[in-house]
């Protein structure tokens, strides 16, 4: 076996399982594990993971402005989101599956349990996926998601965000996160975002880019993602 283990999850970058703040993310109180994690030496079970490639995604999977159309175009600001998936050592992560899901421009999810009284867009589904290329680069088109209210505390609103799910090269590098938009006044008020250690929060805020913006079509955002990297000292067996 030639695999080198991954560096540990950096708990100065990730939110804790149970939000310790009185005005924090309430539903974590009964759901986050409270006993210490048991450290294990990574084995082949953690050093392997599902393998993807460009045939893993369909033609329209990476275009959320088109994959939910029924009788017209979805409403809202068209966006294009791109970036690179890298590891902590700065190495590009090719062939990484990225799954995304989001609310429509009005802040409404197509999900059946979403009760928010904002309109469904018949031409917007809100889910899609793409795979990184040989340089770790991904790209998808969508509609800028709206903010939506939720029940965490009175007058709670989630900032505009897109949910991301990534595998990376192994089960150990799995990551589910959310991308936010620059300048959003709701970020400072959002307990899910501020549950991240302060120094790490800005990593989830995409940059607007006029270079990525597509003339007459879509506003461009850049969001780079860093997964756990392999340790530099190889495993002894």
């Amino acid at each position, binding site marked *: *076996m*030639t695999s080198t283990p991954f560096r*540990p*999850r950096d708990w100065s*970058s*990730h*939110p*804790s*399982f149970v*939000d310790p703040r009185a005005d924090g*993310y309430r*539903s974590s*109180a*009964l*759901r*986050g594990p*409270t*006993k210490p*994690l*048991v*450290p*294990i*030496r990574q*084995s*082949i*079970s953690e050093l*392997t*993971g*599902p*393998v993807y490639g460009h045939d893993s995604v369909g033609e329209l999977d990476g275009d959320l402005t088109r*994959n939910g159309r029924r009788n017209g175009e979805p409403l809202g600001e068209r966006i294009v989101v791109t970036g690179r998936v890298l590891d*902590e*050592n*700065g190495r590009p992560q090719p062939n990484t*599956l990225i*799954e*995304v*899901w989001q*609310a429509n421009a009005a802040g409404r999810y*197509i*999900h059946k*349990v*979403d009760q928010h009284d904002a309109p469904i867009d018949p031409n917007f*589904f*809100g889910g899609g996926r793409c795979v990184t290329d040989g340089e770790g680069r991904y790209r998808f088109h969508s509609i800028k998601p709206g903010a939506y209210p939720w029940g965490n505390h009175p007058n709670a609103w989630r900032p505009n965000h897109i*949910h991301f*799910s990534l595998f990376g090269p*192994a*089960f150990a590098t799995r*990551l*589910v996160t959310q991308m936010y938009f620059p300048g959003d006044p709701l970020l400072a008020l959002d307990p*899910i*975002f501020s549950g*991240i*250690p302060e120094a*790490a929060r800005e990593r*989830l805020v995409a940059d607007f880019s006029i270079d990525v913006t597509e003339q007459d079509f879509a506003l461009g955002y850049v969001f780079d993602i*860093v*997964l*756990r990297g392999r340790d530099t000292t190889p495993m002894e067996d």
Partner: protein
Amino acid sequence: MALKQTPSQTVGPFFAYGLTPEQYGYDLTSVADGMVRDDSTAGTHIRIEGRVLDGQGEVVSDAMIEIWQADAQGRYAHPDDPRGSNADFTGLGRQGTGTDPQSRFRFDTVKPGSAAEGSAPHISLIVFARGLPSHAYTRIYFADEAAANATDPVLSQVPAERRETLIASRTDESGVPTYCFDIHLQGNSETVFFDV
């Protein structure tokens, strides 16, 4: 180390149409679901069933479970496993807990073989849920592998009184060997989660 890890965030309550669309009846293909094997997959066909429970013992109906496992001969479908697995067995499963009346997840798969010398058969598992800001790793071991479990290097790092939380019990009532693996996120019987 040049770069810092991107922070995790909760999967939230609305993952179903993006991550488990077919299971929940949405019009998008799923990359993985509860059917990990097919009829012809070599090995002992088994079912894994369980619930996710919160700190008050309430079932969690908006969790998502992913499993990753070796084939019946202990081989992973990955280039770093030089033994080469069954071509038709990826070993990845994904299920939400929101479609079963009792909020169970269910995987139809094969019993994994031992992946390395001294390692007991096991399945790696990740829990995602609304209310869980970072995902949690655990492993499923099998009650009918007591001898192998006794010498497994990972189980032996777990305090003896907590090992039971990782061992799925077996029933054969439905005709196919079915292993029950309830996941307790908190409480006296909190499942052991690993710092992988």
